């Protein structure tokens, strides 16, 4: 299926609307070392304020993986760490969130379960379906088709021979 066009993409040239270096992510990050980034998340995600907000959001059924990705992207945009440090810190964020929601005892969607609804059919399943379909067709006896009755041409055209 062809993907629908996306209209939420940035406008071409949007990044040039300000001087280079004005944005926080164009500056050197606050934490350069992975250890510092991990430490930052451990401290931040352990705050009571954050835990309350996380529990509220997780209860709505939003996957924790999406929340973790949003958190680290937001920190990149604020210039706290670089993109690669954020990607590396993702497991730490996930674990911290898991510990919070499990301690709260709520129903949550971790986002780590395999979603089979959007997966294409497996090859084996597809083959078995094809096989059963073809055997069904082979077993079916052809119905007696009524022979079409061909009526004699009466020759109603202009050039037809007159009788």
């Amino acid at each position: 299926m062809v993907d629908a066009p996306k209209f939420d993409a940035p406008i071409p040239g949007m990044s040039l609307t300000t001087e280079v270096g004005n944005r926080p992510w164009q500056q050197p990050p606050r934490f350069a070392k992975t250890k510092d980034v991990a430490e930052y998340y451990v401290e931040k995600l352990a705050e009571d304020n954050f835990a309350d907000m996380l529990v509220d959001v997780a209860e709505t059924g939003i996957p924790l993986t999406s929340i973790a990705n949003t958190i680290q992207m937001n920190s990149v945009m604020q210039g706290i760490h670089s993109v690669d440090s954020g990607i590396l810190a993702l497991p730490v964020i996930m674990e911290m969130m898991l510990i919070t929601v499990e301690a709260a005892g709520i129903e949550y969607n971790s986002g780590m379960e395999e979603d089979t609804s959007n997966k294409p059919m497996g090859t084996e399943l597809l083959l078995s379906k094809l096989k059963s379909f073809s055997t069904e067709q082979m077993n079916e006896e052809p119905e007696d088709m009524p022979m079409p009755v061909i009526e004699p041409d009466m020759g109603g055209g202009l050039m037809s021979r007159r009788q």
Partner: protein
Amino acid sequence: MNTNYTLDVYNRLMKTMKVAKPATKSNGLLTRTTKSKPSAMSEVDVIREYVSAIQEERGNVKNG
């Protein structure tokens, strides 16, 4: 386009955490006894340590 790599990164790290350490060989006469220099920790090692520590804590929380 998928821009959420959380699951992939998490699963990959978990896989590397589950890898069992190779068994140490018995000390023969020709076995080198000097210890190799401890190599510097990579960035992934740092994350692995943090994750294992949090997981341990998570287990403690679960068990009450």
